[in-house]
């Protein structure tokens, strides 16, 4: 495989990760601004990338910028806001086909890099701040996004559960902040927040794709070095605090199907052990939960477990008939007890490892997945490659999993159900 990986320091608090792979026909550049999740900044940070990505000083309207991007073979400037442990990540990305694949060999990479950097550092302004009308629309869109969280009931239930699981912790703040905070945003405040973000956030630039010329790469370095910067404060995600008693929360809505989310916390610091525990328990279509809750008892269509290694939290979520909330919960408890007693086969563990290692190899096959891998890694003390991670997974034993299962502390059971159904207790 002809992949090259490089990590370079741009300046204090800003790093550049480059993954070049000639198999790809595209180039992606991700600029991530990372700050500790903080309620007072959360909503402003959520609206900023939306204000940056569809105009800039040179192309001041969505129409002008979209037309320019269309002429560059459907190049895209997109944006996002996400959570990574206790961090809020504000992202701006460009995607374009490599120069080699344009119809007449047109050179478009340089222009795409310029547009991306202009969106980040030279936004369209009026009277020294974001254009008021643009701001009004983007703020409304943020409010709509917050309100629309109820549209996807599974996501809504997991989000509500997380607010309870991480109560009082940065990770418990919704990624878009709270409606009441978003309502109070003003254009001037958000512009001020934008300048602070550029000055104080940790910056991670990740390039993934066919490759761009040195000149274009140097532009990225020069423009980021030219920013007025403070050294970002040292900050690390900490494991979620355990509760003394399990918390039960029920929300009611006009729904056809109930959703249940269960969370457990652990002291186990081996990410790979917990990952394998989750695979064995509910992370695959041959896991204990899939085999029993879905296949044997026909209680649900989905019932997977997932592990958040940054917060050391194991999460299980399922969609069930209203009257099956208790039977499903009992069976999940039952399977967990079996896991704690080691009542699962070595074969289940080795098959789980096989699947995990297979997905690690596949990380290299898409520019997006390899870029995400390294963004995730840059938050860790030691950066490991997918191959190194596979070796660590291979070393996990059944005994490790049983010990880790016995370290699990019940934390939260969240249920979203119909208006007339019994409470969750």
């Amino acid at each position, binding site marked *: *495989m*002809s992949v090259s990986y490089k990590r370079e320091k741009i300046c204090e608090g800003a790093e550049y990760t480059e993954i070049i792979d000639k*198999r790809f*026909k*595209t180039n992606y550049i991700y600029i991530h601004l990372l700050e500790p999740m903080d309620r007072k900044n959360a909503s402003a940070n959520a609206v900023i990338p939306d204000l940056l990505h569809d105009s800039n000083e040179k192309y001041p*309207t*969505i*129409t002008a910028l*979209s*037309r320019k*991007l*269309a*002429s*560059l*073979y*459907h*190049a895209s400037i997109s944006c996002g806001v996400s959570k990574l442990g206790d961090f809020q990540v504000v992202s701006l990305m460009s995607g*374009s*086909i490599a120069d080699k*694949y344009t*119809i007449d060999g047109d050179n478009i990479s340089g222009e795409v890099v310029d547009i991306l950097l202009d969106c980040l550092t030279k936004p369209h302004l009026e009277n020294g701040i974001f254009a008021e*009308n643009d701001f009004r*629309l983007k703020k*409304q*869109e943020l409010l709509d996004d917050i*309100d*629309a*969280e*109820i*549209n996807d*009931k*599974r996501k809504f239930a997991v989000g509500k559960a997380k607010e309870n699981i991480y109560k009082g912790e940065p990770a418990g703040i919704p990624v878009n902040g709270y409606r009441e905070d978003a309502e109070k945003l003003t254009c001037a405040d958000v512009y001020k927040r934008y300048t602070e973000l550029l000055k104080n956030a940790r910056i991670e630039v990740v390039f993934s794709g066919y490759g761009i010329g040195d000149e274009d790469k140097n532009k990225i370095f020069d423009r980021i070095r030219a920013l007025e910067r403070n050294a970002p404060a040292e900050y690390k995600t900490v494991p979620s605090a355990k509760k003394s008693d399990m918390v039960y929360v029920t929300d009611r*809505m*006009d*729904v056809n*199907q109930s959703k249940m989310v269960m969370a457990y916390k652990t002291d186990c610091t081996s990410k790979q052990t917990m990952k394998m525990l989750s695979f064995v328990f509910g992370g*695959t*279509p*041959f896991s204990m939960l*899939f085999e029993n809750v*879905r*296949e044997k008892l*026909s*209680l*649900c*269509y989905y019932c997977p477990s997932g592990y958040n290694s940054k917060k050391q939290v194991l999460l299980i979520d399922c*969609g069930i*008939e209203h009257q099956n909330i208790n039977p499903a919960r009992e069976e999940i408890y039952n399977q967990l007890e079996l896991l704690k007693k080691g009542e699962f086969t070595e074969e289940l563990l080795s*098959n*789980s490892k*096989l*699947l995990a*290692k*297979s*997905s690690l*190899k*596949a990380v*290299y*096959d*898409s520019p997006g997945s390899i870029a995400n891998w390294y963004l995730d890694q840059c938050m860790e003390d030691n950066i490991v490659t997918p191959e190194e991670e596979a070796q660590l997974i291979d070393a996990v034993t059944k005994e490790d999993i049983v010990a880790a299962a016995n370290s699990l502390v019940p934390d939260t059971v969240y249920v979203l159900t119909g208006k007339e159904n019994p409470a969750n207790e």
Partner: protein
Amino acid sequence: MNKKIIESKRLDEKYTVIEHPSGLRICIWKMEGYSTTHALFGTKYGSVNTTFKTKKDKDFITVPNGIAHYLEHKLFENEDCDVFQLYAQTGASGNAYTSFDRTCYLFSCTDNFEKSLEILLDFVQKPYFTEETVAKEQGIIGQEIKMYDDNPDWCVFFNLLEAVYFNNPVKINIAGTVETISHITPELLYQCYYAFYNLQNMVLSIAGDVDEDKIIEICDRLLIPNEDMELQTVFPDEPDEIVAPLVRKSMEVAVPIFNLGYKCAALEGREMLKAEVETNLVMYLLAEKTSDFYRKLYDEGLINSTFSTEVFSGEGFFMPIFGGESRDPEKVAELISAEIERCKKEGFDREQFENAKKAYYGSLVKDLNSPSDIATNMINKTMSGLTAFDELEIAAAVTLEDVENRLKAQFDTSRGVLSIIDPIS
């Protein structure tokens, strides 16, 4: 065995199509250096195929709605074990899906490709249904159906289809209803299986760093030749008119969600692909971010970034659809119809057209990055009697006149249907 190389000089890419003596068409795209291999084994059988006849039947039979999807679930269980258990031993990640006109079984893997291919070919050719296993699935699929019943995007779309089509079975929910699936029996599943899972009606599509000769050797060994069942399917006559111009329902959503479709006649093969390319370009020119019209809707706060367009097409159906969130969907629908009429009279701007064409071409190239995208594209196009490069060639050759003619032919505003999901007041 007939072997054909399908080549794109434009992309410097090629793949092989083999007409296997069993009747199966096999597509193989060798992707050197990729870790992942993606394989799909599919049949031209979906939720719309509810009435059919083979040479063994005296008359046409009509089966319960949702049976194609039910069959997909049940095929995963063979006499001795679950197919997921078999994939677990190779590290492959298996799955399947049923659409309106296709059912595909697939896996992705990074190791043990040949063993996983054997599993795929074996289980899809060996149905095993009993009263007990069929009954067990009703709970699982029942929960899948209820999950979709709570999904407003799904509901707004199926309500649209109900208001567009009088008789076309495309309006039926792919999974059926809890009531229709209660009539499914092992006998009916076998009847559908032997009618549609005939190798002459199927395609195998593989993309990855694979050895073509080994694939053929496995196919020679495992494919079970079957007699031509002289399958006939019928679609009820569908009037040109729409059922109702407006349909609305209330659900737990924050902002109204809408789908606006214009009923068109169904097309087939290359003609359908050409219409898809041109209709996509019409919608791009009408209402993509590059258009003044999008800007007007956006600036007036009538649409937000969820606004999107799609061409809904397949066996027996073709319809352009606009959709998204809006506080005033009826106003948006009225303005879109007015803009369609204006563009019919005034035509499109040539420069905008050239940019739209480049953008569309660029998006097709971007879609050729991963084994899963490529294998899926090959199976879809092969089932429609096309090649994986036809769309790119049509897009490169399309003219402004083609697109303007398509606008006139395919966007009849008297056949517009608006589906709205309102928030519960």
